[in-house]
């Protein structure tokens, strides 16, 4: 899988209350959730995000609650991929389970800023800036998780295999 999109840059410890505040959790429709994505920290996000855009964040992205509404909202908003230096554990599972690919990269978050166009190869973990030679790498995804991503999410995976 290859991705290309504009960067939305975030810092450390972006928690799920920032991704989608609890007051918007009284619905579970993903498009409605997408409309409230990052409202408190980046009120312009939902309106200006374009399909295919990529989130680039520092450490511990997605910490806090277990709400799957967070990756769902991000995905429904049009984000194709999230790259961070590290992810909080539950967010990591949730993202794979719902088919939102994520990558951990040590060096890429330092280098790019808002609006940069980057391309990413999920299979190799290579990250590249548009018109740039320099490449950045991400941690390879464990094989079991790759299978889940390939299937399109945990539901599809179980459907395919008939079991977990």
């Amino acid at each position, binding site marked *: 899988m290859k991705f290309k999109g504009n960067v939305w840059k975030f810092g450390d*410890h972006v*928690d799920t*209350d*920032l991704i989608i*505040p*609890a*007051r918007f*959790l*009284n*619905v*579970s429709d993903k498009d409605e959730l997408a409309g409230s994505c990052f409202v*408190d*920290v980046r009120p312009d996000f939902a309106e200006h995000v374009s399909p295919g855009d990529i989130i680039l964040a520092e*450490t*511990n992205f997605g*910490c*806090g*609650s*277990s*709400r*799957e*509404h967070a*990756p*769902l909202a991000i995905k429904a908003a049009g984000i194709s991929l999230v790259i961070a230096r*590290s992810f*909080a*554990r*539950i967010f990591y*599972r*949730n993202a794979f*389970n*719902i088919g939102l690919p994520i990558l951990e990269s040590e060096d890429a978050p330092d280098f790019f800023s808002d609006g940069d166009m980057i391309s990413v190869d999920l299979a190799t973990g290579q990250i590249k800036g548009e018109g740039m030679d320099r490449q950045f790498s991400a941690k390879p995804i*464990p094989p*079991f998780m790759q299978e889940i991503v390939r299937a399109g*999410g*945990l*539901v599809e995976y*179980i*459907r395919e295999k008939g*079991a*977990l």
Partner: protein
Amino acid sequence: MTAPMTITEKILAAHAGQDSVAPGDLIRVDVDLALANDITAPLAIRVFEQLGPREVFDKERIALVPDHFVPNKDIQSAQQAKVMAEFARRHGIKHYFELGESGIEHVILPEKGLVVPGDLIVGADSHTCTYGAVGAFSTGAGSTDLGAIMATGKTWLKVPAAIKVVYEGQLLPWVGGKDLILFTIGQLGVDGANYKSIEFSGEVIRDISMDNRFTMANMAVEAGAKNGIFEPDEITRKYLEKRADREGNYWQSDPDAHYEKTIRIRVDDLEPQVAFPHSPANVRPLSDVGHIGLDQAFIGSCTNGRIEDLRAAAMILRGQTVAKEMRLIVIPGSPDVYKQALKEGIIEDMLDAGAVIGPPCCGPCLGGHMGILAEGEKAIATTNRNFIGRMGHPKSEVYLANPAIAAASALLGRIGSPEEL
């Protein structure tokens, strides 16, 4: 002979059908109890249904607890709660708690004896780690995980590396589980235990009550941990004796089990701790707080909504009056906690002091309802998170503390100690 293991590794191995496991192993495990609430269940149910028509894996091993937005705060919440209630009825879910018997999931489940030592519990709520207090492996997951578990009774896990925290010495007055865990999170940072297991031990832990253990295990996730766990002992046995039908497995860590890190904390001088906005790791000892004027105090939540918490608060509130222009909201964590508090005269003392008492639920903890903060307002709360906007307006502030400090602060109108009264 298998390699020495921690209690967490032993529980995981037993549920994976293996003799042993090691950190980093990806394993498929049987789940003893699956949990969801009114926010996470509707998504999990959708996933369950996408998996095709089927029965749940076990009607007696799923707990569905409406607690976040109940009593339903608006039409949308009511719709969500209805999805869960109908699913429970359709599938004959034994442990569905309707309003009246319901309270906060993490208060109710141990109280009803549904979690026992040695269990493997997965809940679609990050504070599912609370049940580590009884010596279970218990962790939060997402709704898709939960939907899949409801269908298959299984899930996948990566065996976490372990951090051991050893508490030694003698606790000062007004210092309890909340302060130990806040201090520990301050030491570790919000991702200091990411993907890891925290094992609480040491002489302080051996004597500490179940309610304090629940408070500590509850906040393990605030350091990013996958689970927080206590080795079950006589205190655990006593707590569960009259509650649980099952005995459970009283696993203990091997003396030579491997820990990635061991942290020793001397508690003799440990003051009550306060976590400043907007992170549970942003802790200071009470004496370093300075003048923080308050608009609201909230005593409740799955962290500190149990009977001992209310007792501690009542001891301070009894015969006193909440400061002018200050709101004190108290929410007992369950109907049983509420009844016990009534019996002990705690509720009356609180009402006399000027508190408002809410029905058992999460209330303002996650900014749902029953005590939302306005722009610029400051609150002290016995909850577990003080992220931006957690309890209301993005420009409001939440300070986390134990129930005695929250009660004293309600009387003072600023963050302060019971000793100042």
